[in-house]
């Protein structure tokens, strides 16, 4: 694990931004999570500090008080050098059931034809790949997934839809993802995920964390409906598996 050159900048009086080189890379994301774990465990009071990792940055926020930027920057540099580089922080692998039925995958055929592949091939390529969660934002529980195969890159729709269903699985340029709630959106919709990505009634409302791995697997319409019912009565449980690369 190399030491990356970090850029540490102030972000108003309540936040500080730590930036890694401007690249989408697993090794960078891993170092961000390693450092953030070190900060949480050994350096900063987690009752007061919030940390937002995304792609090549880690933002630290202290809502109630102003930050002494110069002092904190020095301490962050020292803490970065002290982080444990021997092992990677724990991350999880989630298999998410997706129904690619044409009722949900409203753009499935159009996307396949534009990409010059069959619908079966599109589903296979989309579901055999393992994606990395590079960020969570935009909406509660919305994952920025990296690692989409080039063959599935397709521009977002020219006119966004006013309503995209909660759970809709979409494709747009280098990204794929799930709408965690009904929202306007311009992604090409190819299926529906039966698992809610954000549940405000749960103590842990969003099971996925930045750095985790996500893979979709195709399910039939009947299995999908069953999972939805199981989810509503609270008996559907996702398998939580540690990811060891």
């Amino acid at each position, binding site marked *: 694990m190399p030491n990356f050159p970090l850029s540490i900048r102030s972000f108003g009086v309540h936040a500080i931004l730590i930036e890694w080189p401007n690249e989408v890379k697993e090794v960078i994301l891993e170092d961000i999570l390693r450092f953030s774990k070190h900060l949480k465990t050994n350096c900063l009071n987690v009752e007061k500090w*919030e940390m*937002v990792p995304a792609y090549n940055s880690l933002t630290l926020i202290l809502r109630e008080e102003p930050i002494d930027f110069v002092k904190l920057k020095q301490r962050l540099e020292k803490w970065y050098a002290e982080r444990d580089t021997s092992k990677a922080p724990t991350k999880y692998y989630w298999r998410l059931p997706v129904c690619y039925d044409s009722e949900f995958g409203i753009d499935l055929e159009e996307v396949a034809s534009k990409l010059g592949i069959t619908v079966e091939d599109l589903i296979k390529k989309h579901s055999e790949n393992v994606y990395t969660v590079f960020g969570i934002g935009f*909406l509660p529980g919305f994952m920025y997934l990296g690692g989409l195969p080039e063959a599935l890159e397709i521009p977002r729709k020219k006119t966004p839809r006013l309503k995209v269903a909660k759970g809709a699985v979409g494709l747009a340029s280098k990204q794929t993802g799930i709408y965690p709630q009904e929202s306007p959106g311009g992604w090409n919709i190819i299926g529906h995920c039966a698992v809610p990505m954000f549940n405000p009634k749960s103590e842990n409302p969003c099971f996925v964390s930045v750095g985790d791995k996500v893979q979709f697997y195709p399910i039939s319409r009947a299995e999908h409906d069953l999972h939805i019912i199981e989810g509503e009565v609270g008996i559907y449980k996702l398998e939580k598996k540690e990811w060891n690369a």
Partner: protein
Amino acid sequence: MLRVLKAGFFSTIQDNGRFGLLNKGVPVAGVMDSFSATRLNKLLENETNAAVMEITMTGPTIEFLKPTFFCAGGADILMTLNNNPIQHFKVYQVQKGDILSYGKLVKGFRNYLAVKGGFQVPAILDSRSYFYPITEQSQLKDGVEIEIDVCENYSPKLTALQIGSFLAESKLEVSKGPEFQLLSDRQLERLFSKKFTIAKEYNRMAYQLEEMIEQHKYNMLTSATLPGTIQLTPSGKLIILMKDGQTTGGYPRILQLSDKAISILAQKKYKDEVSFKLV
């Protein structure tokens, strides 16, 4: 209990918002003008995080179903208690059946109603702040009843506060955002020499400004945003994120509003003018 006979244009319950879920994409939410809301809670000697009603533009009509004490303030809206005019930032005692009515908006945009002990709506993810779909409602509806504490004996240490010219302020104090160094001399000149007008698009998520500054071609990876972050779009539009603003964004974060500036902006509406002052 109190009953919201008429809810007004957009009334919600807000406390200081949610903590610890920014990394799951959950906005802070909470009162837009914390300057006013904090003072009302202080006046009633409430906890600093007590939930208040945030009233937007046109206010509600409320029937108290329990004896309590209340005070209101923020936007200058004409208010009456049982048809008698009342003052802002002043504590009033009410009995069952008393009616509080909001009238014409004079200045500002958001008024806050605080009751002794705070509004007891359920806390979801440790906050009573309305934010759909984390809370089931996005705003109060006509006829809804809200739990409040009974309070019959209370002698406030202070019965009223003088707030001064807060609503007249239009200078927003900002500090440098993480991508401040991208700004050209011409952009800086425009940002700090002239006024900006609030555009039609303004709500609890974000305020857009009408005047554009020079466009840019800078591309960045998605990264954290905060309430008060000023984003610059490629076309040169300025978007100021507010309390319900999204937690990540891909536009350069050129400036960051101070806490006080967020409160000042929260009282602005379409066509109002603001200017920026770098501190």
